[in-house]
């Protein structure tokens, strides 16, 4: 069989320009979300150019496409969910292909939104206090679900963005902290982020966990009530990362290190409130997020409209791009992701699995580019959730040295991941 001309059917041509000295233009895939800011700012505000690089940004519609286009060399680098390289290295999901994360693109930005109708029923339980409290919200939802079950009513459907996403694990974490079994008491489905607010309005789903700006889009429209932000669940939770193929990083090491320097400068710039207006205006453009700049400014400042009734909440670190080593791909974070995959039965614990997970995060590349900024290596496998302002909502502490025990200690978890058979 002969193929027709291969340039047909796609706006993408060959992968990035590869000159004598290797690539200077990085073709980068991204999903329209606020946490693509560091990549967008690096391309738009001169940080890449300062390092002699260019970033050619290509907007995509699904994480599966991002994964496949990176694997099949249409992209050199990509805006990725932090669990994606971990899943790829573990061989999970469709088309797993070696992917590494040498740089985190920031943290925060996620929240959980429920339909107005469901929230009204939670209010009727009398379990909600006067203060915004994510745990109280989860417990009130548990009470509503119990009464639904008793009356034989259908369980609500909640949307997440991808099987291997921070949103998926955060939604499950929040539900389980309230005593809800995510596999029994509710139904979880995947909904593309830009469709979440419409799906909620249409009653196709009763809630969702998604990144910025989509929670605020739903609350501003009056179709949803925000009930938890990432800061309530675990402030340090890893969000998006820069993903690339390990062979690409090896072959173009110098350019990749320069890219990390450019992204570091861009991240620092994005964190500075003085730049938020300029950033919001660029993000608002149709080729990026195609969302009103004013809403994006609110997102960046952490000023939350919880609903359309004027209930607001300030979360100063709702989105962080740089401060507090936000860009350092700390191996303990990859291991925490692994623990949640085990907790919910996506995989089981093994030493081979541990090695695969640790190969996904590449602090060595970060150090090679930005050594003076990296935290002490003794922090690489630190226990998570210890610090006073960085606890998990259920008070558990993650000890990366004993993942099976950490998982077993959760009262709510899937049964399937608990066969801690160790083949190695």
């Amino acid at each position, binding site marked *: 069989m002969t193929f027709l001309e291969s340039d047909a*059917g796609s706006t993408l041509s060959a992968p990035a320009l590869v000159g004598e000295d290797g690539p200077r233009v990085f073709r980068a895939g991204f999903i329209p979300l606020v946490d693509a800011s560091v990549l967008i700012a690096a391309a738009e505000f001169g940080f890449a150019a300062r390092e002699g690089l260019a970033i050619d940004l290509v907007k995509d519609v699904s994480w599966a496409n991002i994964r496949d286009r990176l694997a099949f060399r249409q992209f050199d680098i990509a805006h990725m969910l932090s669990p994606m390289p971990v899943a790829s290295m573990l061989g999970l999901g469709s088309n797993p292909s070696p992917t590494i994360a040498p740089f985190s693109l920031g943290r925060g930005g996620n929240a959980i939104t429920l339909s107005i109708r469901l929230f009204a029923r939670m209010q009727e339980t009398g379990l909600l206090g006067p203060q915004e409290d994510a745990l109280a919200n989860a417990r009130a939802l548990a009470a509503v679900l119990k009464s639904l079950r008793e009356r034989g009513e259908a369980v609500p459907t909640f949307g997440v963005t991808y*099987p291997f996403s921070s949103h998926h694990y955060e939604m499950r974490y929040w539900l389980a902290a309230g005593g809800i079994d995510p596999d029994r008491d509710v139904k979880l489905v995947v909904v593309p982020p830009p*469709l979440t607010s419409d799906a909620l309005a249409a009653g196709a789903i009763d809630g969702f966990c998604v990144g910025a700006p989509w929670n605020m889009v739903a609350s501003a429209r009056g179709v949803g009530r925000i009930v938890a932000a990432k800061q309530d669940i675990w402030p340090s939770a890893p969000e998006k990362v820069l993903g690339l193929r390990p062979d690409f990083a090896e072959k173009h090491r110098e350019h990749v290190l320069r890219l990390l320097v450019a992204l570091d400068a861009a991240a620092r710039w994005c964190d500075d409130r003085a730049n938020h207006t300029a950033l919001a205006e660029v993000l608002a453009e149709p080729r990026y997020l195609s969302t009103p700049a004013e809403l994006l400014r609110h997102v960046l400042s952490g000023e939350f409209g919880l609903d359309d009734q004027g209930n607001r909440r300030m979360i100063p670190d709702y989105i962080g791009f740089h401060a507090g080593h936000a860009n350092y791909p700390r191996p303990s974070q990859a291991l925490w992701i692994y623990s949640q995959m085990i907790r919910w039965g996506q995989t089981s614990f093994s030493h081979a699995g541990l090695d695969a997970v640790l190969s996904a995060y590449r602090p060595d590349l970060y150090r090679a580019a930005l050594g003076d900024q990296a935290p002490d290596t003794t922090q690489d496998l630190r226990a998570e959730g210890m610090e006073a302002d960085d606890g998990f909502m259920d008070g558990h502490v993650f000890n990366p040295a004993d993942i099976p025990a950490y998982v077993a200690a959760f009262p709510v978890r899937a049964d399937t991941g608990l066969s801690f058979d160790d083949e190695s």
Partner: protein
Amino acid sequence: MTQPDLTILVIDENAIRASIIEEGLREAGHLRVTVIHEVSGVARVIETLEPDVIIIDIENPNRDMMEHLFQLTRMVSRPIAMFVDRADTASIEQAVEAGVSAYVVDGLKKERVKSILDMAVSRFNAFSRLQRELADAKSALEARKVIERAKGILMKMRGLSEEEAFALLRQTAMNEKKKMIEIAQSVVTAAGLLM
């Protein structure tokens, strides 16, 4: 036929393209082909059909939802992998570039599926070419209309013959190193402002 026919599910929001794929599959002797245009309710379709091959357009934002179905509900008895032969990167790259992706039941012999995927890729490409040709034809028609109007304006305002009006447009375009349609458009716009 010595082997049981494969069950194929085509998910494409573009109904015309889907029917082109379907026709290609039938021509190749595949009779168990189902086409759907919407992803809502796809879980039930997959459950009933138990397809061996799923073909989906990658501009469909619901691809992530499909993968979640495969992964979490375990409604498909055997694991599903994208493409059969990962070593055949050239044809995979061609497919991704054409905008089509496929999920294939694990364990299926690659010879049985390769021709299906090749067909899907070439039909996707043929469809984009048709669309491009259609778009080109449409804009050519639009351009001809504008040039006709500009000619009419010049004939009326400057008392030129049709040939002279045409020659004036062409000469001006050459002098200004612009396309004739651009000059014609300026004439039409200017006339709209002045008259």
